[in-house]
């Protein structure tokens, strides 16, 4: 795993779009395709026909005011909510009716808005949960393939060290996750998803509650995931500086409908977005507000 350390190409941080790699045909392949998605909760129409695509090796931002359907959209894609209508395609395959764990195994990993942090599991235990298809997950193997399990765990622990250094949680490795702060839990869930290593990563507000200096590191790490490891990322984020800095494409939802789509620049100048999203406050404030304060 090379995400933890290693230089970031200078200039990457400023204009990530330049660093995208295109495939042979010059066109970018579509990794995730959401078609006409509907989902309602009682009388509330959380998603009212949302369609969009996420291209391979890109970072796509999903933004919108509170209650616009971003998290619902994540939950439907990852299978935690069943959809009322529409379909989700991942690498050309219909995944709309699969169970969450099947979707996860298929290559879509996610974090949660309110970071899941098992109270009585240490940070390292949390991360040991992440690797897929571990030998020791089967009862039979626990008793008959002890050496292989030990060896695997050893390898996982090495990777865990790397990731913990990245998110700066190494000093808390044997602390119960329940004792971590909100921001640290966010970092832990990011670390977990890095170890889980899916092709498409859904990040639900990865920088909320994280201190500004660390946000920069996280942004760089997310960019490296795309540039060096070819991952595709879809993220919900309220921090517009982060969005405009790293997203190749931004999708804007409002009241369950997609109201705009485009590069961060295009979105910034889109009247519809400003109207829905800002509800009165100035555009300048939104896109240039300071991250931490």
């Amino acid at each position, binding site marked *: 795993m090379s995400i933890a350390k290693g230089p970031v190409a200078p200039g990457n941080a400023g204009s990530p779009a330049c660093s995208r790699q295109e495939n042979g045909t010059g066109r970018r392949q579509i990794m995730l395709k959401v078609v006409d998605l509907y989902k309602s909760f009682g009388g509330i129409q959380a998603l009212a026909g949302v369609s969009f695509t996420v291209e391979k090796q890109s970072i796509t931002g999903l933004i919108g005011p509170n209650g616009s359907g971003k998290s619902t959209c994540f939950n439907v894609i*990852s299978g*935690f909510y069943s959809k009322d209508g529409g379909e989700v395609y991942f690498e050309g395959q219909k995944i709309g009716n699969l*169970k*969450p*764990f099947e979707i*996860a*195994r298929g290559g879509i*990993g*996610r*974090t*949660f808005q309110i970071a*899941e942090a*098992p*109270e*009585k*599991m*240490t940070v*390292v*235990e*949390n991360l*040991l*949960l*992440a690797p*897929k298809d*571990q*030998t*020791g*997950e*089967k*009862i039979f193997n*626990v*008793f008959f393939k002890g050496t292989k*399990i030990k060896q*695997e*765990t050893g390898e996982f*622990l090495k990777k*865990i060290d790397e990731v913990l250094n990245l998110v700066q949680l190494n000093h808390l*490795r*044997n602390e*119960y996750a329940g004792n971590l702060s909100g921001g640290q839990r966010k970092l832990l869930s990011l670390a*977990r998803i890095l170890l*889980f290593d899916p092709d498409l990563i859904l990040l639900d507000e990865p920088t909320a509650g994280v201190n500004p200096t660390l946000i920069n590191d996280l942004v760089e790490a997310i960019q490296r995931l795309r540039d060096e490891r070819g991952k595709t990322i879809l993220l919900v984020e309220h921090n517009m500086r982060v969005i405009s800095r790293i997203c190749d494409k931004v999708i804007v939802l409002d009241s369950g409908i997609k109201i705009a789509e485009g590069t961060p620049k295009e979105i910034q100048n889109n009247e519809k977005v400003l109207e829905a999203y800002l509800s009165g406050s100035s555009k300048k404030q939104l896109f240039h507000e300071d991250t931490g304060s």
Partner: protein
Amino acid sequence: MAFVNFLVYLAIMMGIYGILSLSLNLQYGFTGLANFGQVGFFCLGAYITTIITLTFGLPFILGLIISMVVAGLFGYVIAIPTADLKEDYWAIVTLASAEIVRMFFLNEDWVVGGGVYRGGAFGVGGIPQPLKSYFSAQSYPFFYFMIVLICLIATYLIINKLTRSPYGIVLKSIREGEDRLAQAMGKDVKRFRLKTMAVGGMFGGLAGCLWAHYYGFISPRQFLPLETFIVWAMVIVGGKGNNKGAILGAVIIIIFYHSTRYLKDYIPVEEVTLASLRMVAIGILIVLVMLFMKEGIIKEKKPVY
């Protein structure tokens, strides 16, 4: 000698309940499955081994294995409709399923071979004790204690190994994460729950089998829901999520439960009243533990990597 016999009896009870407590600890302490029907597995194990050894005349070891298998299967099956439900529904379903097992053996007297005043509410006697003929009546309990001890140690080692493995980490995440986390990490939570109920059920069955062969007589009255709560008390007092704690809990609760027998010499209360006071004593113990040692006497061990 009478006192020594009593101690051996206590030790055997501690061993059998220790196995039940370890099994519940795997389900509740590590996986968060609120199994309120532990006595169902216990009952099933006792009856299955009775049928195998008494009705069919097969050896004890077969009774032991088959009762474990059947109780394990039963655990798996009752978990199928409930695996996706929340904790409180588990409690209801498991409680009911244990009662179903008891009611079945209460009403279907043919399963133990029938006969006058036999089966059903009359219970079944004459359950053979393994290798009895090689020992004197005095020394046999010591031998039986060795069998129970070996079973307890094996149960401890197996469950301990499981809970410390990657499998155990998934179980803990199911306990802590309300399913979401484990699912997002690609774990088939339902399967893990089914398997855990099956493994827990197996050891519940083992305890039932040991019980039946020790007493030589079983009846549905021995398997009332109250037994389940005694096992819960063991897990809570000893320390949930800690296997040593589960055994310690069994030891303590058994001592409390049987201490009333000797208390009558010291306290001027009628024996009948004292007998009912034992549950009060256990209740007070639980309250004290919850107040001053919320996680039980031995806390869950924090693994250090």
